[in-house]
């Protein structure tokens, strides 16, 4: 069973490469943890709580993907970087302060284990273990430029050690605009990073600040975008890979080849879908 990934090249075309333990790839989750994330998002959750829940669930699923009979295969290094009161790693527990961590170490370093009821059949509930690595946080300002610069430097080191790997995927979740300057140049610098196999994939997930805001998912042109900030996020987002588009298609979203890795004014379900698509750059065997 092969492990081909299709990816975007700097020329805009697609090429194939492999994610292996010798050539792992990486995921960087860049999370807005500023005070505005304390606003209500779902019925009983703030944005910060909803993001932490979705992210912990995503990490669990990534670990299960890499879990084989003999243990966890280190196909990925993972970083969770937050920005709010300060910029830096957002892991809790024994991973606190660490940047990119091999996925096997993430699996072995659970902060605590919650249990969530899941309806496995109509009326039939089962308790599923829900590991936690990242706690919700909402304080301080939106230090987006600082955070983008932090990730740029962190990935620079990683790319130096992994020059032929499948390019990293960066998933950026925010609900607001930068308070520490114009992030355009930082976005541009980040999106120009890459390996010999192509540039990084940058996924921007913008959360809704108002319940009435119209959401926009994976646009292929800037025409429908309401303002310059939305256009900035659109322009800095990568094109979805063919595999990401096929995942979107499975979820009832037929997209064009020019669809961008960007959602605007996402509600909770669109945020979860965007995370699901963003972390499926290709098929992993």
């Amino acid at each position: 069973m092969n492990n081909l990934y299709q990816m975007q090249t700097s020329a805009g075309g697609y090429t194939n490469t492999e994610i292996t333990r010798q050539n792992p790839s990486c995921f960087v989750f860049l999370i807005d943890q500023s005070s505005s994330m304390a606003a209500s998002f779902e019925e009983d959750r703030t944005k910060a709580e909803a993001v932490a829940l979705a992210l912990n669930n995503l990490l669990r699923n990534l670990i299960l993907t890499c879990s084989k009979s003999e243990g966890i295969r280190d196909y990925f290094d993972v970083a969770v970087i937050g920005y709010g009161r300060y910029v830096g790693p957002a892991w809790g527990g024994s991973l606190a302060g660490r940047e990119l961590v091999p996925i096997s170490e993430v699996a072995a370093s659970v902060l605590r284990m919650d249990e969530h009821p899941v309806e496995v059949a109509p009326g039939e509930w089962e308790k599923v273990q829900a590991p936690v690595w990242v706690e919700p946080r909402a304080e301080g300002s939106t230090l987006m430029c600082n955070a983008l610069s932090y990730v740029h430097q962190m990935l620079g080191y990683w790319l130096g050690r992994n020059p032929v790997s499948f390019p990293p995927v960066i998933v950026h979740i925010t609900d607001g605009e930068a308070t520490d300057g114009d992030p355009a140049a930082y976005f541009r610098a980040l999106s120009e990073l890459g390996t010999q196999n192509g540039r990084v994939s940058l996924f921007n997930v913008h959360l809704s600040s108002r319940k009435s805001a119209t959401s926009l998912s994976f646009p292929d042109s800037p025409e429908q975008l309401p303002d310059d900030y939305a256009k900035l996020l659109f322009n800095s987002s990568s094109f979805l890979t063919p595999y990401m588009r096929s995942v979107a298609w499975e979820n009832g979203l037929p997209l064009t080849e020019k669809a961008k890795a960007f959602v605007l004014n996402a509600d909770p379900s669109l945020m979860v879908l965007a995370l699901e698509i963003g972390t499926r750059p290709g098929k992993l065997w």
Partner: protein
Amino acid sequence: MRVAVFCAPRRFEAPDEFEDAVWPEETPTEPGFPLRVAVADGATTSSFAGTWARHLVRAWAEETLSRESIVDDITTLACRWREEVEKTPLSWFAREKVRLGAHAALLGLEIEETGRWSALSVGDCCLFQVRRDILIEAFPARHPEALDQHPYLIGTEPSPALDEAARTAIGYWEAGDALFVMSDALALWFLESAVAREQTPWRWLAGLDANASPRAFEAMLRPLRAEGKLRADDVTLVRITL
């Protein structure tokens, strides 16, 4: 009748990651009729798929798995698989993977002395029959495109869909025939050679030394892998010469 069994893991340096299973487990010195042969290919996406594949081939060999009662038989086997994998303490993620179940493709073949053979297939392991240097039977896939899809596999959570996915075939053999049972990567190479390029891959398979060690077999596959003709995957082959 002569029977030869060949196995090569995807990565030779990691034999514990080999998730195919085969019956007989090694080349038998004096095979007799009725001969029961099976190849199962555990899905790498699931955990303990190699263990599941071994349960399947053993059940086929012991005649505790049949087309008529496949859903019940698999339900029984799945209980044994679960008991086996849960014998040792598991980490949280291993327990979750066990909960999600394991999957495998299976091809079981029975050869009778009367000249009849019958086969059961779920998934993309394949059987080929060659007579007088001509491919006369390919089951269940007849062309390479049929292997380029996501096959239905036997899961440890059997559903009625398994009953529909299970396929059977019956054929007849003559002295001098060769039957090959193999896992999907080698089957894809075989069909691409035989059907798409009109070549005779069975000659290469017939020429393999029955006493070749797994390391020697892996070395023989290496050129095919290097040329991109054989996908990087576990490879299992049973060759029966009648």
